[in-house]
């Protein structure tokens, strides 16, 4: 029995899904060059203290990574609909390994998406020290945990037809409100943004200012979303499979 073989084919499947490859890599990459390149000399975007190339790099990377994480939900929904989940229940693959593989593939796809965007950022002149890159990446990976839970949750709740639009909508909403597309620095919108996990994905870019990146609020927000969405994912999973 080999779970690495299982994982390998799972990855192969994932990267063959054109729709999600586009959402996680192609689309943010193109947007980045379209939006950030003309503003590459803007050194304090919307009062964030971050240059446009860095801000948009982090923002679009967050967008791609959120899509990558939620794509694991789309695969779960597809497998349920095909009756494949039932077939897998007749194999020695444990439900735990099944979910772990799904989340891991989501993460690997997200990491590739981040790497692509960071490479693009370097092309537009983003310069960070090795430690800063590392801290930023770690923060983003932590900030993606709630999205892994959300993906599993939606995958068990929705049909294949519904899951695509639902995920597109969810990511769009989190992106706009969380400041992924453009900075939200003031007023009620800013207050809303700070309680969203997507906001903190973008805030990870603040390591470039020498800060730790996240305030205590950031950690709290991510923890709260993780707890809530993990509970929702567990409930959805149980309702769907009749397991405890």
């Amino acid at each position, binding site marked *: 029995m080999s779970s690495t073989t299982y994982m390998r*084919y799972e990855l192969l499947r994932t990267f063959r899904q054109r729709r999600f490859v586009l959402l996680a890599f192609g689309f943010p990459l193109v947007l980045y060059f379209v939006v950030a390149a003309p503003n590459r000399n803007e050194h304090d975007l919307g009062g964030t203290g971050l240059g446009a190339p860095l801000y948009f790099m982090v923002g679009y990377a967050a967008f791609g990574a959120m899509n990558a994480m939620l794509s694991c939900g789309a695969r779960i929904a597809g497998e349920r609909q095909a*009756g494949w989940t039932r077939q897998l229940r*007749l194999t*020695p*693959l444990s439900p735990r390994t099944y979910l772990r593989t799904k989340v891991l593939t989501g993460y690997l796809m997200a990491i590739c998406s981040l790497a692509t965007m960071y490479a693009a950022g370097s092309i537009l002149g983003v310069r960070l020290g090795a430690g800063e890159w590392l801290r930023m990446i770690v923060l983003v990976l932590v900030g993606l945990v709630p999205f892994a839970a959300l993906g599993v949750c939606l995958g068990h709740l929705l049909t294949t037809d519904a899951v695509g639009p639902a995920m597109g909508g969810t990511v769009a909403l989190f992106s706009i409100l969380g400041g992924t597309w453009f900075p939200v620095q003031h007023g009620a919108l800013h207050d809303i943004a700070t309680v969203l996990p997507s906001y903190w994905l973008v805030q990870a870019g603040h390591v470039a200012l020498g800060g730790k990146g996240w305030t205590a609020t950031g950690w709290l927000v991510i923890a709260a979303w993780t707890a809530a969405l993990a509970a929702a994912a567990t409930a959805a999973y149980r309702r769907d499979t009749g397991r405890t």
Partner: protein
Amino acid sequence: MSGVALRELTKSFGAVQAVRGIDVSIETGETVALLGPNGAGKSTTLDMVLGLLRPDAGTVSVLDLPPADAVARGSVGAMLQTGSLVRDLTVRELLAQMASLYPHPLDVDETIALTGIGEISDRRTQKLSGGQTQRVRFALALVTNAELLVLDEPTVAMDVESRHAFWTTMRDIASRGKTILFATHYLEEADAYADRVVLMAQGRVVADGPPTEIKAMVGSRTIRATLPDVPLERLERLPGVAHAERRGEAVVLRCSDSDRAVRALLARHPEVRDLEIGGAGLEEAFLQLTAARA
């Protein structure tokens, strides 16, 4: 070691009593057909054998274990009645992924050869026809190399040729000492490929025995003909006729040997018209059997 043991197994869905207390024991190495018309409770029974459904009452053991444990050990390979394949992998890749989950899988190339899917082995699963999908699903059950194979109406979506190839492969698998339990509503399949037939109707086991015995019970043919004014007793005395019934001007003869019955009928009653010969139909035979029991 016992292959599959079902004791007083019961399952209802709301008001529908799908399985009403069945007892079946299957030895390891046996090939057993679960034969019955649609709605007999075959799939419900197999789903309980596989641990997909929890029985309302009664017990299931698979290779002396609870179903979930037998499954977790990789001792069970299955082909469910419904279900398609996940997309974006080739047939060969999907088989390799499935094989990776089992402790002693069959070689992927051997499985491909065995099930005759060499031509489509490099095709993506979403590009297969219904019949091809069915063959790949069979290959997925085989690549597990599990001791117990459970197949729920495996040939339903297959054409005649695939069906023939399928059973040839099954013979080969059975000869390797595997225990095989398959559901079907084709009497011919049960008769030709099983060591034993368990006949189900309306959630009960109505007969359990060697195929020849079951075939004699349900395999009879009927003759229908327009033949007024002939007393039924005379028709029942014709060679090959087991039972005669009148429906207005028409008579219905249930036959033990329809060939002899037709010859005799034509010879003695040349005025007979509208002659029709048909299989009794499993449904009809089952209903008679269950009625006889009630």
